[in-house]
């Protein structure tokens, strides 16, 4: 039996239990499971099994120039200023000011304005980042589309490049035989 490689796209994280179970089944059958998540923090309550390769899209997005600049200007630069100025007698007031800045301005700007606008304007970028990081040079035996957010992402990737997933069949759920690698995914239909 060949070692099967299955990609789980779970960027919405709304069906974590299913992804955990099915990726564990792939590993148990001697296969390789890669899971794309938005950010791993949301998965604390239903941890992915050991051995799963995890790719975080938030980390991928930070490589994009717009996110990188936002991080630099809104978060990193003020933090640097705080480190430089916040010494001696100034440490407490500067730290307090920085906390207030993060709470009242930076976080609100990031969540309320920047990210919605960024996501709306860079849908193709997101698809391209995922493609580059996960699909380029990799050959998967099946791609599991796990939740509504993932449906949007996978459709965008396919729209950008109809051959992005190669010959790997898409599915919403692995059959037992697919998880065990007993049959080709297409044969289970």
């Amino acid at each position: 039996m060949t070692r099967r490689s299955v990609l789980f796209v779970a960027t919405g994280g709304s069906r974590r239990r299913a992804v955990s179970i099915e990726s564990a089944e792939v590993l148990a059958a001697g296969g390789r499971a890669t899971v794309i998540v938005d950010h791993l923090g949301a998965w604390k309550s239903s941890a992915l099994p050991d051995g799963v390769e995890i790719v975080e899209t938030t980390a991928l997005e930070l490589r994009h120039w717009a996110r990188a600049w936002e991080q630099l200007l809104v978060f990193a630069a003020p933090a640097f200023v705080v480190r430089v100025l916040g010494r001696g007698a100034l440490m407490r007031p500067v730290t307090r000011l920085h906390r207030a800045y993060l709470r009242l301005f930076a976080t609100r700007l990031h969540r309320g304005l920047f990210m919605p606008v960024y996501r709306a304007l860079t849908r193709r970028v997101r698809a391209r980042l995922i493609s580059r990081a996960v699909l380029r040079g990799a050959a998967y035996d099946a791609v599991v589309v796990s939740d509504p957010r993932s449906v949007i992402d996978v459709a965008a990737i396919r729209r950008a490049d109809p051959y992005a997933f190669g010959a790997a069949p898409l599915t919403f759920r692995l059959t037992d035989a697919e998880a065990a690698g007993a049959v080709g995914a297409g044969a289970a239909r």
Partner: protein
Amino acid sequence: MVTPWFPTNELPYRGAFVAAMVEAVAPRCDRVAVYHSDLWTAGMSPRGDRRAQRAMHALAPAAARTHRTAAGVPVTHAPYPIRPGLSFAELGARHDRALRAALGGAPIDAGIVHAHTGIYSGWSALRHMRPDARLFVTEHSTFVDQVLAEPQARVMYEEVLRRATRFFVVGEVPRSMIAAAFPQHADRIAVMPNAIRFDLPRPEPVRQLRRWLFVGHLIERKNVAALIAAFARCRARDDSLTLTIAGTGALYRSLVTQAKELGVADAVEWLGAVPPATALDLLRSHDLLVHPSRLETFGMTLVEAVAAGMPVLATRSGGPQETLAGIESAVGELVDVSAGVDGLVEGYWRLRGRWPDGLDLAEGARQLAERYGYPAVAEAHLRAWHGAPAPVAVS
């Protein structure tokens, strides 16, 4: 079969009754196929919701896949996105779109279509049946009254009732709700029970009523807070009591806190959601099923418990007093919902006082098997589909 509920890895207990019905009738049919329209909930804006629907229509033809159950029945899993807060009419429409996406525009290739629930699968099945097909519907929902309170959903429901060849309910609770809303169709609504397995032996008989078990959602309607309060009071008199809770739900955290506050946290085991097979194993390894629900249309777990050779302590929440009619005292204790925690506590000690000679679990199981066993329920379905007598098995 067209159903909005069927066990999946994400929700392994949801639709266990549909899976049981399929398992019961499949050996008596030439061909059975299941279409499961599975609504995937995600917190999305209306715009994101529209995008997800468009994307699903693009992917579904390639990704909708057919699996086989342990009994070899093909199940086509047809997911579709939703966001919280949609109306019942919209949810019915989403089930319709899920089925459309999975079928790729083709009609369901069957002369008999049996749909579970009126507004969801009944409505969608009507739109995808062959012109010569006949529709049968079984309503299981506890929330029929909420569905019928929505004007558009009510119109949809009436259409399903009018066009269905036969319309079934699993108990008196949904029957009375539907009959009150549509008195013109009241005489067309019949009861069709859920199917229960009675052929799984218990390794060891129950000896003492110490290991309590609850199986179900951790939601308000299931009244689990009253169960934990009653358990704490009973455990104060007998510290050997334990409680196992199998299920998940919105109340999980508050219930864990309640158990801690009442000092019984170390006696309560939380298993989370378990698949139907595991639930049946749990019934065979515990002493007492406690079912404190405020409203049940059937109370399937109670019958499964008796089938597993264990007594039950349940509330008179609609379904239980129907399903256990005539054998209540033989299989356990029923208490009024309004009696609350006191009722459960008193019911437990009454039951313990009668145990074991005051009960007759074997006779209770025999009578329930005649009503809800796989052969009985399969026969009832075949009679409904084909008219009496039921055809001879062909597969």
